[in-house]
Every structure is written in structure tokens, then in C-alpha cells.
């Protein structure tokens, strides 16, 4: 039985917890609120009380279950091996079954399901975003801030919606001479609508390595925002659509440059579709050949080192929770960075601590998200670097927001962008030497 279908599915997981409270040492939320309900132990108790029938699921309970960035730090620090990430998903799904989805989220997830409407909305958004958002002068990226507070605060800095989505910018198949592989690129929403620069970098690096890139037109949102908030039905619809879109186009492997997307393809699709024989098999098949871009470049290609030009950057690396703890990818991005001539990698304190973005968490709990971000920003600032690299567009947004609000000069990039930059410089160097 999957965690998405019933709270009973986590009974044994709950029983493993001995209430030692070791999760308190690492929980980013608890560190800010210092309230027991913020930490895994508190929410585990609430789930236990519900299962034992001592209390019923309430709306208030749902609000408490929203207090988790799903950063999985507690999993790692738990002496009993409790998988709290599973518990929180089950609790949230139960909350939605019993008490419904918060209206804002309902609208958002419905929109995600209707791709064309969503695309249109985003297109309209890219034209009219100036109404709600005020540009911020920044020499690295186009950033903006809310003009009015619509309940998420005015602190948060957003990237401007791209005029053209990534998927409309490229054909479905990007061919290369003598391809050694055909790779499907799952863009994810943030890269498709906001951070098209990351998407372009992925394509650049793959084609540079003689890999044909396929970007199926009918791919959809990964569904993680829905599944982590308990909207299992929407998540299932999206999982099916994505599997069919990639299956139709076919590829030797699938790459993502987003930690949610990676988690979705590697783990979540299979779990969501557990009861659907045919689709479960399809999900498992694609899970086996899904890779994060850094993992793919190191272990599957491996990417070519000749032709890398000099990029003078002092870089610190922030670990996305769902890449590091979620997929065990931590060495690979660093290895890529270290292989780029001119890049000096300087580690920050606790690179693996959550940045506090956590998707819709930052919209539902803007203050808390901001406090968590402030710690991360301070850690970045003390490294005296000029660039933060990370492996997730959502983290990038949060880090940019933090850096912008703290007012120091630091560019926030996806690791693959720095690699693409290096190839680009390399080509320039080659031209000049000819």
C-alpha cells in the first residue's frame, strides 16, 4: 500500500520512532520556531494520535503537517531509520482526503494539469507580469519583487517569466552529427517558464558531448508540488502524461536539471502508479534510465574535458535536499566544478542545510521560509565567493532572493551553466588561437 493511499501505510514507520528527539538537531523549521510541532517528532505524534483514534484529522492538523520543507535532514539523523519523508506525505494526503485542499493550492494544481491553459497563462504572465512585479536592477538576472503584498510578503524576489518558454524555443529533437546517444530532457516547469538559461545550458552541454536531445512537447509538470501537498489525484494525472510523452518519443536515457523532477522520475511516479500494472512497469522502466544532469555527465557520458575554457569564478556549492539526501548526488556537481579550469571551489558551512524554499512551503509560510533563507545567505556571504552553484531551479530562486535581500554581489547559477560557460569560453579560445 502506498503512502499516498492511506495513513495506515505508515503504521510501522511511526512505530520505529522512539521519540529521542534527534531530529531537533537538524530540522530547519524547528531551529526557527523552537516549537515541538515544527519537528518530525511532533508531527509523528500527531499522526499517531490520529491513527489511534485519540483525535480526528482537523484543518489545524493539516496546517501543522504543512510545517515541513521535506528536506529529509531528519531521516539522515534518525537513529531508528525513520523515513519521515514518507510519513509527511501520507499525513498530507490523509489531510487532503479528510479536509480537502487549501483553495489556493487547488487552483494552482488544477492549472498545472491543464497544460495549454497553463501555457497561455504563463505567456500572458510574461507580458503582464510588470503589473504585479517591479523590476529590480541586478546585473546577473532579471529579477522582480511583488508590488503589493498578496499574502506571501514582499520580501521574496522572483525571476521574471521568460518571454519565450524553453520548449517553444527548441524543436522536439535537437540533432547532432554522429550522435552517440539519444537523451530525453525533462525540463520541469521552472526551467521551461523561468530559468530557460539552465535549459539552454543543459542542451548546450549535451550536444557538445555529441548527444542528441529530445524534448517531448507534451511533457507536463512533474507533479511533485501536488504530491507533496497531498493532491494525489493531480499528481497521478501528471505522472501518466509524462510517462506517455517520453515513451512516445523514446530515448536511451532521461535527464533532468531539477531535483524535484529527478525525484519524480526516479521514485515518485512508480509509487503513485503502484496499483496500475501497465503504467507501473513503464514508470519502473524510465526510473532506471533517469539521471540528474550532473550524475549523467559524470557516470554515463562521461563529459569531455578537452575544450573546457577558463572560467575565473570563486564558487560555493549549495546542496539541494532532494538531490543530496533524496538521490545521493553530492560529489558529482563538485567534481564537475573542480574540473573546470579557473573555478575555485570554496565550501560553505553546512552546504546540505535546506534553503527553505521547498516549493509552495515558501508561499504558505513566507516568514519562516525567509528566516531559514537568512541563515543560508549568511553562510554564503562568509565564503567570500562570487558565485553560488546549485542543482535545482527552486533552490536557485530562493538563494537569489536571499542574496538580493542581503544586498551583496553574488551570482546564483546551476552547475551545468558554469560548465556550459566553460565550453563556450573554450571555443572562443580555440578560435583565437587559429
Amino acid at each position: 500500500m502506498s503512502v499516498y493511499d492511506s495513513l495506515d501505510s505508515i503504521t510501522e514507520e511511526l512505530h520505529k520512532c522512539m521519540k529521542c528527539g534527534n531530529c531537533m538537531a537538524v530540522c530547519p523549521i524547528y531551529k526557527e520556531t523552537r516549537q515541538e510541532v515544527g519537528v518530525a517528532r511532533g508531527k509523528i505524534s500527531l499522526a499517531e494520535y490520529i491513527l489511534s483514534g485519540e483525535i480526528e484529522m482537523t484543518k489545524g492538523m493539516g496546517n501543522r503537517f504543512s510545517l515541513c520543507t521535506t528536506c529529509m535532514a531528519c531521516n539522515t539523523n534518525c537513529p531508528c531509520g525513520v523515513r519521515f519523508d514518507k510519513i509527511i506525505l501520507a499525513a498530507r494526503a490523509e489531510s487532503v482526503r479528510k479536509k480537502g485542499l487549501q483553495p489556493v493550492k487547488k487552483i494552482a494544481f488544477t492549472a498545472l494539469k491543464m497544460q495549454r491553459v497553463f501555457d497561455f497563462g504563463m505567456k500572458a504572465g510574461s507580458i503582464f507580469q510588470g503589473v504585479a512585479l517591479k523590476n529590480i536592477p541586478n546585473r546577473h538576472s532579471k529579477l522582480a519583487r511583488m508590488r503589493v503584498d498578496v499574502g506571501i510578503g514582499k520580501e521574496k524576489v522572483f525571476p521574471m517569466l521568460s518571454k519565450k518558454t524553453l520548449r517553444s524555443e527548441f524543436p522536439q529533437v535537437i540533432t547532432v552529427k554522429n550522435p552517440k546517444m539519444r537523451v530525453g530532457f525533462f525540463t520541469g516547469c521552472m526551467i521551461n517558464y523561468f530559468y530557460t538559461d539552465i535549459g539552454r545550458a543543459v542542451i548546450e552541454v549535451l550536444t557538445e558531448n555529441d548527444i542528441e536531445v529530445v524534448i517531448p512537447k507534451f511533457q507536463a509538470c512533474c507533479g511533485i508540488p501536488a504530491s507533496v501537498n497531498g493532491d494525489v489525484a493531480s499528481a497521478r494525472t501528471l505522472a501518466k502524461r509524462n510517462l506517455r510523452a517520453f515513451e512516445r518519443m523514446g530515448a536511451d536515457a532521461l535527464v533532468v536539471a531539477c531535483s524535484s523532477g529527478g525525484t519524480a522520475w526516479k521514485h515518485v511516479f512508480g509509487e503513485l502508479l503502484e496499483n496500475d500494472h501497465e503504467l507501473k512497469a513503464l514508470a519502473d522502466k524510465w526510473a532506471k534510465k533517469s539521471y540528474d544532469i550532473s550524475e549523467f555527465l559524470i557516470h554515463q557520458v562521461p563529459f569531455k574535458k578537452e575544450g573546457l575554457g577558463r572560467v575565473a569564478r570563486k564558487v560555493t556549492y549549495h546542496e539541494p535536499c532532494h538531490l543530496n539526501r533524496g538521490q545521493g548526488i553530492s560529489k558529482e556537481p563538485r567534481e564537475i566544478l573542480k574540473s573546470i579550469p579557473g573555478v575555485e571551489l570554496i565550501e560553505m558551512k553546512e552546504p546540505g542545510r535546506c534553503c527553505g524554499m521547498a516549493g509552495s512551503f515558501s508561499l504558505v509560510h513566507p516568514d519562516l521560509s525567509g528566516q531559514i533563507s537568512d541563515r543560508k545567505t549568511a553562510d554564503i556571504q562568509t565564503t567570500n565567493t562570487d558565485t553560488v552553484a546549485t542543482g535545482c531551479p527552486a533552490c536557485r530562486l530562493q538563494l537569489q532572493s536571499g542574496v538580493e535581500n542581503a544586498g551583496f554581489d553574488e551570482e546564483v547559477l546551476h552547475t551545468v551553466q558554469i560548465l556550459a560557460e566553460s565550453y563556450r569560453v573554450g571555443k572562443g579560445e580555440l578560435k583565437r588561437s587559429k
Partner: protein
Amino acid sequence: MLAREVLEELVRVLGRENVLTEQEDLLTYAYDATAAMKHHKPDVVVAPLSTEQVADVVKIALRYHVPIYTRGSGTNLSGGTIPIEGGIVLSMLNLNKILEVDQDNLTATVQPGVIIQALNDEAAKHGLLYPPDPGTVTTATMGGSVSECSGGLRGLKYGVTKHYIMGLQLVLANGEVIRWGGKTVKNVTGYDLVALFTGAEGTLGIITEIIVKLIPAPEARKSILAVFDDVDKAGRAIAAIIRNKVIPATLEILDNVTIQTVENFVHAGLPMDAEAVLLCEVDGYKEVVVREAVLVERILKEEGAVQVKIAKDDKERDLLWLARRSALPALAQKRPTTVLEDATVPRSKIPDMLKAIRSIATKHNLQIATFGHAGDGNLHPTILTDERDLEEMKRVHLAVDEIFETALALGGTLSGEHGIGIAKMKYLDREFGEAGVAALRRIKESLDPNYLLNPGKIVRRD
């Protein structure tokens, strides 16, 4: 339920954001880290920001006869923070400032909500150390740890929490604020209330500020691991080390059940048929450490260890400690419920205690793994069980009774470092006799006549 006026007064004093009244929040203060313990929901949780606010809360509670359960991180193992009579849970976590590290007097002054590790991180910046290191060092608060007088791995050489507490600011049960002790090494002015309140489990007063003693951090350390095929030999080795005037910072023991469980869990390279493993660490000046390590190695071999390893560097040290570090996680993952006891005996009685525990396990058909601080006689017999299995839990309770009886018969004590709380209250007269318990009660009643503070712990109303 609390009268509405009580809540209104609390909100007036503390502000709404520091008063929790919704059941979804209250339920998360109904338990602590103690296994197989009934939970109790408080009526309200308050988190004061100053000593004055703590005093105001006490005065309100006094006026309306509402019990107060002071709480830090709730990591204790004696039911010490469970609000069994409802009332107010007083969370000290907002009082979390390190007020001062005084390098000239070698002291630190902290608020009670400071996490022990945070104090140590701050002390380390000055090359200093706060030695008490309970297993919960990264989560437990200073206030909780002083109130429970927690111990840890370094007890043998460095002592426990009570040896490092020099002064306290306290809110008494009548709402008055007093200071006792201070930064002076010597202080015999009046009764030693600092000693009395350390380990009082929040039953006599509320700690709002703590002055601790710091020591220069040792410059070097060396770890030695020894494997024994016989518990008695391990016991004799412990005695021999001490007899040779070496006082290791830590001297830990793992019994056969623990070794097997750990080995299956992390493959630390220990022989499965080993009857006991001793893990010893000496620390101090570099030269001294080298000399002591060689001496310890020789003693261990002379006492019949089948295998002795000295860690050459930090990497090897981590490897040696892997087994000890993994003991609790490995045991905890074997069964859902882990009953961790801390009966303590004079260190010379360790082999007797280990053997007694093993026969108790056989008698009641239970899995009991024992590991712990052999150097100071503080063992952790750990019963692996499932609290849903009521029949097995009955046997667990019988075994716990017998473990305590054995410890007392060997000249030991009920609790080395976890405290009495609710869990061990019923055994107190076996250690103190009725007159002893009555004396405890008179102390409690002279300082807290209305049983306002942490009622139902250590001593009950007659």
C-alpha cells in the same frame, strides 16, 4: 481545563505568540523521550522571553493552583517532563542565549534554553571545553541537563554535570527570584543550593540562568579498542587500568548481544563471538597521551584481551568508535520499543552486573543488550521489545525490577544519569528506605509546599 482568566493573564504577560492553546500544539508536549510511558496533554504551553516573565507565570500559576511543567528539549528518559497533571508546560527554549564566556575565570554564563553543543562550539573558539557530554548533546538544553544532572561518556575522568555548575539564577515556587553561587571556585556561604537544584528535575524551582565551569580543551587524544572472550577478564582489565593510575577520559564496554547486533548493522569488524569489547580513550598533553596509550595497551594484553587496536589517526579513531556510536541505533532498529535503563554499580562490580543482566534476560525470555560507561560503572541495559505486545511488556517490567534490585544489592544506585522522574519513583524507598523518601518529601515541601513545580515526579504528595 484551565479557567479562561488564567489564559488571559498568561497572554497579557507573554503575548499571544508565546502562548499555545490549540490541541494540535498541546498534544506535541504530552510526551518526552521516555519509552512506553503514558502521555498527558497539558492545558497550555508558554514560552517566556525573560526571567521576569518566568516569575510572572509562576505567580499566575500559584494564584490559580495550576501545576507548571518546565521543559527544555524533552529528551530525558525518566518521564521527567511529561505533564501528568495537565496545567502549564513552561518551554524554556526562547531563553537561548550564551551570555558570556569568561576566559579569565574559566566560566560561561548561559540561559537555560541553550543547547549543550552550542555552548561547546562557543567554548571551543577559546580553546575551552564544557566536559559533560550526554548522548543528547546536540539536542538537549543546558537547563534540562542541569536539572537532570546528565552524565555521558567522559564521567570517569571529568565527572558529570554537577561538577561543572557554579552558580544559578532561580525562580522559586513562590515567584521570587534568587541567585546562588557564582564565578568563585570557593563558596561556602549558606547551604549549597546550587548542588541541591542540580539534578532536582525541576521539582524545586525553575532555573533561569546558569554559570558553568569550563576547562582547557585537551590537546590530544588516543583511542584503544580491546576484544575479550570473557566478561571477567574485561572487568579485571578495567580495574587494572585504574590501578595503574591511568584515568581514561572514556572507558566504554559493549556486551556480546550489543556486539552481534552492531556487527550485523554496520560491519565494524568485531568478532561475533566476543564476550565483551572495551573502548578506551586517553586525552591530555601529546606526550602524556602517547605514554598512557602504550601503558593501556600493555595492560589490556596482560589481562588477556584477544585483540587490541590503537587508532593511529582520526580516521582510525572514527572506525574504532563506529561500533560504540552505532550501539543505540543498531539496537533501536531491531525492535520498535527500546527501554534504556541506567542502573549503576561501583566499577569493580561491572562483570557481576553484566552476568546478572544476562541471566535476567534468559529468565524472562527477553532480548537485553548492555553497553555503557564501564569506567564509571554506569551501564545501559537496553531491552528490545514492542510496547504493543502487552504480555511481553509485563515481562519487561519484571526484568526492570530485577535489574534495579541487582544494582542495589551490588552497592549501586537506581539511576546513574537519567534521573527518577515518574519512571523510577516507585523504587526510591528500596534505595533510601522510607525515612529517606520522607526526607526528600520534606525538602520538596519546604521549597514548594503547594506541589506547583513538576508535580508527580521524584516524590508524590503523601
